[in-house]
């Protein structure tokens, strides 16, 4: 199934989000192909069901991205493994400077959970921007990450915050850094029988300033581009800067050049890079020659706006 989808997606000239471009190749359809539906009692059972299906099975998380694809018959898994009834995958825990969130935690919960709001405002805010209220009531953090839409909010935040994704598969449990997780349009490092179980976010002793800026054509629509940024400021300097961009490429990316350029710099210099347009140009320059150059320009603007928020913090204390 994934292969079929990838084949179609590889021919698309703009990211994800534009199912029409893909769907037009098919006979018009709006009811899914037939499949078997199972509700495993445990993650291990889910894994074994998926491995027996040999790649043609699929986890059913919130279904807010998968089901539209199935209705349009762009995806046709033969088996759905429904994790919605597994309470062990819905949690938010704070332990040893790591915030762990169960993969089946719904966006609405991520957006409104007090612990997330306190420790990971960036994640909570980004979750509140996903789709519409009814979508957030069903959609899940793990589902969004595994779906890997290059314009989506959760993959961007996971990458920017260097999250670690825990997956359980036939070979046991492994942890995948977000930087290695996203492999392209709707493609991840997950093996066909692997199930995402939880996501770990490192949280330091302090709360870093953060910003999330996205430009969508309208509320609830996929972002044309989105930028997440967070910084550690101290001693009048940018001690650490993390900037992630979604929408410009086949997967979320980190603005490595910009991060390097500003890390270690005095705050005044970093702010100057904002006001003289260097920040914006640095990002836009990455898209030179790209057919989607316009998106890079948008990303440049959003980066500038995100950093303006982040760098507005005093940077005096921590």
């Amino acid at each position, binding site marked *: 199934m994934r292969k079929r989808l990838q084949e179609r997606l590889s021919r698309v000239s703009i990211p994800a989000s534009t199912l029409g471009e893909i769907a037009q190749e098919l006979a018009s359809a*709006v009811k899914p192909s*037939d499949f*078997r*539906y199972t509700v495993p009692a445990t993650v291990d059972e889910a894994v074994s069901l998926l491995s027996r299906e040999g790649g043609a099975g699929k986890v059913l998380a919130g*279904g*807010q991205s998968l089901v539209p694809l199935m209705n349009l018959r762009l995806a046709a898994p033969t088996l759905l493994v429904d994790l919605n009834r597994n309470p062990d995958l819905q949690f938010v825990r704070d332990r040893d400077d790591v915030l762990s969130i169960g993969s089946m935690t719904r966006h*609405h919960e991520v957006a409104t959970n007090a612990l997330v709001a306190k420790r990971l405002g960036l994640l909570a805010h980004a979750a509140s921007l996903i789709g519409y*209220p*009814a979508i957030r009531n*069903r959609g899940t953090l793990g589902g969004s990450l595994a779906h890997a839409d290059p314009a989506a909010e959760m993959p961007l935040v996971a990458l920017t915050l260097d999250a670690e994704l825990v997956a359980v598969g036939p070979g046991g449990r492994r942890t995948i850094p977000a930087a290695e997780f996203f492999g392209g349009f709707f493609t991840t490092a997950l093996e066909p029988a692997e199930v995402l179980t939880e996501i770990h976010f490192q949280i330091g002793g302090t709360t870093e300033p953060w910003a999330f800026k996205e430009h969508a054509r309208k509320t609830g629509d996929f972002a044309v581009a989105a930028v997440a940024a967070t910084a550690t400021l101290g001693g009048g300097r940018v001690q650490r800067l993390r900037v992630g961009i979604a929408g410009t490429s086949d997967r979320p990316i980190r603005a490595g050049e910009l991060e390097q350029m500003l890390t270690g710099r005095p705050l005044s210099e970093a702010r100057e890079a904002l006001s003289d347009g260097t920040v914006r140009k640095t990002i836009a320059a990455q898209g030179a020659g790209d057919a989607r150059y316009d998106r890079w320009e948008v990303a440049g603007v959003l980066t500038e706006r995100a950093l303006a928020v982040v760098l507005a913090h005093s940077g005096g204390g921590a």
Partner: protein
Amino acid sequence: MTDTHMIEAEVNGKRRKLAAPSRKLLSDFIREDLGLTGTHVGCEHGVCGACTILLDGRPVRSCLMFAPQADGARIETIESLAQDGDDLHPVQRAFWEHHGLQCGFCTPGMVLTAKAFLEEVPHPTEAQIRAAISGNVCRCTGYVFIVEAIQAAGKTMADGARTRE
């Protein structure tokens, strides 16, 4: 052989038990098997919001769920509210009084979304109302009277809650 499942759910306050194939969309199950045609289908890819129902009290897209997923759930459709013009829910009444509907196709999803929202946020601002219904497309009204209706319904519901206390 089609994979079928028994679904036992509380639908509009009543226990219902019916079988459905795995792939049957919950929206189709509600309309065809439960006979509740007040739930409408406008896009079947989760954008328009016409098929919105309340699942365990929260608005969801019934076109983005399969019928077997509703097993054990509590479902409320538009038919769970008043069944005639005399006993309307405050949200229904406000939509009527403020001309919050024209062709009526988005109305059930819109009313349910508004009801759940007002139960959660009793004194909303206009911006909150607009955000709450941002996933329910209305092609007829331009939303102006819908927003007015939800504001009015919010007042009625809050007053009602105060009276009961």
